[in-house]
């Protein structure tokens, strides 16, 4: 009810939910109901592509929550995304069973290849869907909590914190590249067959994953919006604007940051878990610092501190990326950099800021 009340005063969020609802209804219809030959038919790979974009939007919202509202610029947030993804990937690996190349009923192929005789302790229980889903939330949440506990308690802020987050994700990247870590080394986890008994290549599974992503996006958005609209949300913005003042009026700033940071990491983990079955692979490349920076660019382009702006930015930049990497692959990284510089210089509030400014000018003139 409170969320509904909040939404009534927030045009952007209304629009976000309207678009999300329309997409959620239209995509499965155009894919499953409209016949194959029709112009309006949406191929299976497009369903997965749109689903992937939605996990990016979820990721962008998670970064906007801590950057836009609390001023913590994380340049390592895909560490949490990848951890959630690996948790999901481990479940999917265990589902392969005897269908692997080596046909071992318990060990995934890469372990047989490494001559391992038994499953490492951290792979135990990952064949249970419930437990694996718990790990999707616990693994990134626990890492974020530990990291935040040390960082915020020692009052590391600003650019120093950003650098440490980047070091964190880079350290994980290097660790996951090692075969001995037991996560498939540089090949990562792939060749997934099915999820909860449903064939991952099947149309209805794709639609199911798409719907699950849409629901996760809607619920996470509503949860973030609730937090922002609560008094805690005002405290969070107070921390961003005047941290020591917030401390002197009696708030434990480190607890506020730690709580929000951990929550944000959990959302990122869920995004990663939904991403992996839709793209069919998770490898250490997901930990790469450039990925985290890209997320920050999405949020900056869309307009930070609005949530819906972050989602919009994720869609636009990724659409551009899909286009550029196909048409002009060597240009993409330069375009990304130029985009970030351009937005920072000319559109500090992003596209959303530009639109609100234009709208305001029109009403006043």
């Amino acid at each position, binding site marked *: 009810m409170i969320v509904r009340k909040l939404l009534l005063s927030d045009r952007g969020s209304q629009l976000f939910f309207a678009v999300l609802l329309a997409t959620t209804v239209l995509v499965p219809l155009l894919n499953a109901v409209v016949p194959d030959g029709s112009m309006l038919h949406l191929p299976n790979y497009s369903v997965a592509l749109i689903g992937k974009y939605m996990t990016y939007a979820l990721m962008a919202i998670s970064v906007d929550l801590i950057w836009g509202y609390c001023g913590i610029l994380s340049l390592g947030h895909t560490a949490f995304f990848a951890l959630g993804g690996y948790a999901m990937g481990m479940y999917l690996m265990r589902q392969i069973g005897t269908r692997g190349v080596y046909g071992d009923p318990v060990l995934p192929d890469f372990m047989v290849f490494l001559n391992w005789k038994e499953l490492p302790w951290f792979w135990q229980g990952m064949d249970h869907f419930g437990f694996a889903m718990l790990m999707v*939330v*616990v693994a990134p*949440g*626990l890492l974020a*909590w530990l990291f935040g506990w040390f960082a915020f308690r020692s009052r590391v802020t600003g650019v120093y914190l950003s650098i440490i987050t980047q070091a964190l994700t880079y350290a994980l990247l290097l660790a996951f590249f090692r075969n001995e870590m037991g996560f498939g080394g540089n090949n990562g986890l792939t060749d997934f067959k099915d999820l909860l008994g449903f064939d991952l290549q099947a149309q209805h599974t794709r639609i199911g994953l798409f719907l699950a992503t849409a629901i996760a996006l809607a619920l996470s958005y509503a949860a973030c919006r609730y*937090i922002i609209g*609560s*008094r*805690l949300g*005002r*405290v969070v*913005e*107070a921390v961003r*604007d*005047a941290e*020591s*003042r*917030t*401390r*002197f*009026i*009696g*708030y*434990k*700033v480190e*607890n*506020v940051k*730690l*709580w929000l940071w*951990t929550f944000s990491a959990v959302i990122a983990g869920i995004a990663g878990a939904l991403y992996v079955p839709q793209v069919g692979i998770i490898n250490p490349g997901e930990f790469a610092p450039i990925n985290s920076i890209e997320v920050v660019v999405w949020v900056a382009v869309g307009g930070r501190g609005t949530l819906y702006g972050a989602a919009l930015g994720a869609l636009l930049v990724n659409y551009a990326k899909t286009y550029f990497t196909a048409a002009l692959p060597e240009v993409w990284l330069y375009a990304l950099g130029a985009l970030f510089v351009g937005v920072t210089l000319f559109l500090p509030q992003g596209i959303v800021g530009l639109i609100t400014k234009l709208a305001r000018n029109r009403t006043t003139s």
Partner: protein
Amino acid sequence: MIGGRFLGQNRRSAAPRLDLSHNIILYLEGISVSFDGFKALNDLNLYIEAGELRCIIGPNGAGKTTMMDVITGKTRPDTGSAWFGQTVDLLSLSEPEIATAGIGRKFQKPTIFPNHTTFENLELAMAGDKAVWKVLFARISSEQADRIDSVLRTIGLSDKRNVLAGSLSHGQKQWLEIGMLLMQSPELLLVDEPVAGMTPQETERTAELLVSLSGTHSVVVVEHDMAFVRSIARTVTVLHQGSVLAEGSMDQVQNDPKVIEVYLGD
């Protein structure tokens, strides 16, 4: 995954109740602080009575701000003790714990939350359980709203209730910050240079405000503006090189040869 200890920390920190049985609210005894060999405070002894309005003056570098930092937990002294009433050991508490125990601090530069309305600024400062989980589900009650409105009247900003605090004038920001201190229901207010940069009318209004607050609160004002100090102070403490040089009424202090030497000497 979020531990009970983490969410419950504010409950644990509820400081022991303030004991004013000797009518002294603040004891600073033998406090020394040095930064890289420079002694910012040197065996400072200071006692503030309950309900008193005390002005602290002194040349630049006398240690006024460092003293405030020690009281509010921002700086830990090398030696000495700091007690709030008879029972609260300030040196064992963190900044938010000291704030919750009842010491409010106004900074030299007005620090308010520019992207929140005046009302929201006061709401955030309001005394109460400030643990994360409590704040997430907090609702403002009508008594609390009334209390905020009454503070808005006290600081003369009723008509700015729903204005973003960032758009207030300098003087209004200073008053808002004093209002935020009042919302914390503190016993002791520390006010650092409240009239710097204010117009004469604003200065006068601030003097009235601070005088009206003393009695129900103890107020310690650090100020450079001598005319302002004269208009509000009953007791003045002069700090010099990190310790107390003189203490007494404004007239006593101004005629003290040591003070004259420090302020007027070579």
